[in-house]
């Protein structure tokens, strides 16, 4: 299933890039149209051979696929091939992965207690205020939130550095990424909280919760020991599915916080129509998506023994 999905994503992207655009133009620019000039014609021939553009599309796709699975993602069009795409990805991907993991962890860590508190007080004033807050976070575009956070915590309070420096030590860079992670995490946490709160309210009406209360357990024990786990299904499903959305969100956030990650590479390469880079990034996002959702499936069976076979 997962492999079929990855194959179709790659074929579709590969096809679209080569049919909707002409790689020759992207490499040579206006020269590519100048076929009558013998000088540029020679250049065109040279480039065609170099980038395998003289071969039919399926052949190129199979060759690209073979290279991709062995870790060779081709060469960048825009920089005359240096560094190779895999080099660029290798340099940038750890930043985005760190950013996204940090953001997801923050979102989960914020949303679970938030949902627990609001579910326990469903319908009361604190719950209504929290609902307003979560709608505010959801309605706020992430670039606006990014700018707001940057203004308050970096510029005014100076708690976090303004820019990302790739040469700084690891923990310093984590601090530099933190605000960006918060920007992604807050709206995500709002979504997760809404979802978990609703499911928790449903679970709290179940018979086994009354049974747990009748044992004399405290309210927080009832919620955290008995109610949270059976309420986690849609929560983890959405956390998994949302990873794709967060990668999308990271494009804007990486740009605002000037973090040279995958997101900003994607923007740059799309603008330059640098197909091998776009293709590689799209493939990596699809791959991440597949892996995370396999993990979510495994999590289901950990959470609910009834799913286990």
């Amino acid at each position, binding site marked *: 299933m997962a492999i079929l999905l990855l194959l179709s994503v790659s074929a579709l992207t590969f096809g679209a890039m080569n049919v909707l655009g002409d790689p020759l133009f992207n490499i040579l620019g206006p020269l590519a149209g100048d076929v009558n000039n013998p000088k540029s014609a020679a250049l065109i021939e040279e480039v065609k051979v170099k980038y395998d553009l003289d071969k039919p599309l399926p052949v190129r796709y199979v060759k690209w696929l073979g290279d991709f699975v062995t870790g060779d993602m081709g060469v960048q069009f825009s920089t005359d091939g240096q560094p190779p795409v895999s080099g660029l990805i290798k340099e940038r991907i750890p930043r985005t992965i760190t950013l996204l993991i940090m953001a997801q962890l923050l979102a989960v860590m914020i949303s679970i207690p938030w949902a627990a508190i609001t579910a326990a007080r469903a319908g009361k004033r604190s719950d209504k205020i929290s609902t307003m807050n979560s709608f505010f976070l959801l309605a706020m575009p992430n670039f606006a939130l990014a700018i707001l956070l940057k203004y308050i915590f970096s510029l005014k309070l100076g708690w976090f550095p303004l820019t990302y420096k790739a040469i700084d030590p690891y923990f310093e860079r984590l601090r530099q990424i933190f605000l960006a992670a918060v920007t992604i995490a807050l709206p995500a946490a709002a979504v997760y909280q809404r979802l978990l709160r609703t499911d928790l309210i449903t679970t709290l009406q179940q*018979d*086994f919760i*009354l049974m747990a*209360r*009748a044992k*004399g*357990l405290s309210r927080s024990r009832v919620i955290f020991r008995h109610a949270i786990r*059976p309420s986690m299904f849609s929560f983890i499903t959405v956390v998994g599915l949302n990873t794709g959305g967060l990668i999308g969100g990271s494009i804007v956030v990486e740009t605002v916080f000037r973090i040279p990650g995958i997101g900003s590479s994607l923007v740059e390469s799309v603008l330059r129509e640098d197909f091998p880079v776009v293709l590689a990034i799209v493939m990596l996002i699809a791959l991440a998506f597949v892996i995370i959702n396999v993990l979510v499936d495994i999590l289901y069976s950990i959470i609910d023994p*009834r799913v286990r076979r």
Partner: protein
Amino acid sequence: MNDSDPRTTTPLLEVSDLKTYFRTERGTVKAVDGVSFSLQRGQSLGIVGESGSGKTVLSRSIMGLLGRTNLFREGSIKFNGQELMGLSVKEMRSIWGQEMSMIFQDPMTSLNPVMKIGRQIAEPLMLHLGMNKSEARLTAEKLLTDVRIPEPQRRLNQYPHELSGGMRQRVMIAIALACGPTLLFADEPTTALDVTVQAEILQLINEQRVDRNMSLILVTHNIGVVAGNTDVIAVMYGGKIVEKAPTKTLFSSYKMPYTEALMRSIPKLRQASHTRLATIPGRPPDMVNPPLGCNFAPRCAYARPKCLVEEPELTVTENPEHVYACFYPVGSPEYHERKLELSQRSDLLSTGGQN
């Protein structure tokens, strides 16, 4: 059954004029409307009534397990001499599970589906008795043996869905018994189970009650269930106790026409198969707007004009343990008069049907 004289010892539980109302959009639902009774240590009380008679609310109200929003509760609940009415949830928690516990109706939904049996039993042990994990586990294993679950050690590591309904109800009983409560509530403990398992579970509850000298409040809609398992039976209707008597007395000389109707609706073995089951016509009263007079009057075959306008008080019979609320009880001249009329009418109807 109970050898201690109920008049000389202080009762374990004394409920007086307990009212439990819910505020809803339709108005105030008077789910429990002035219930009083007392229960000795080791004694068992059966509360019988139709769905909606307030019996489940009564048991939860005594235990204090109802949600606090839109709830109105009044009266007195003395447990071991301590007044429970007005205690906070926090104060009640030390009583729940330790002094009082409850076996719920549906063993399919009342156990946490994602928690191992062993942990669910160990939880109150660790909380109330301060046991550590291994002590609690050993005790849990012993409890499972007590409720006659085979291979208790293996069961500890199983999840509820791996057990049958009867087994799960045994696990629930084990959890309820865990900390040695003095008062056990059983709210329709056998309704969700197969008939063959029902008797076993009832027997188990009763044995454990005797062994541990617990008091039991057994709530059920099935008067047959309480027959062999309780010392005293209280019949509830429309949020009130309408008749209360020692079990034998109730079965031999019930006074309320409602009790009579309940007795009639027990299917009997000597009846030919396909005999139409006796039912009580009509529906339980609307507890937002209960009838002016006797709650049962609108459905009662023996009701007279007085019943519709005036509410009967609980009256004591020659047996001080036997009380009922009815103006024209079973055995009264008016009752016999009406019974005669009714039998003549049904004779007419049945001959009419044959022609």
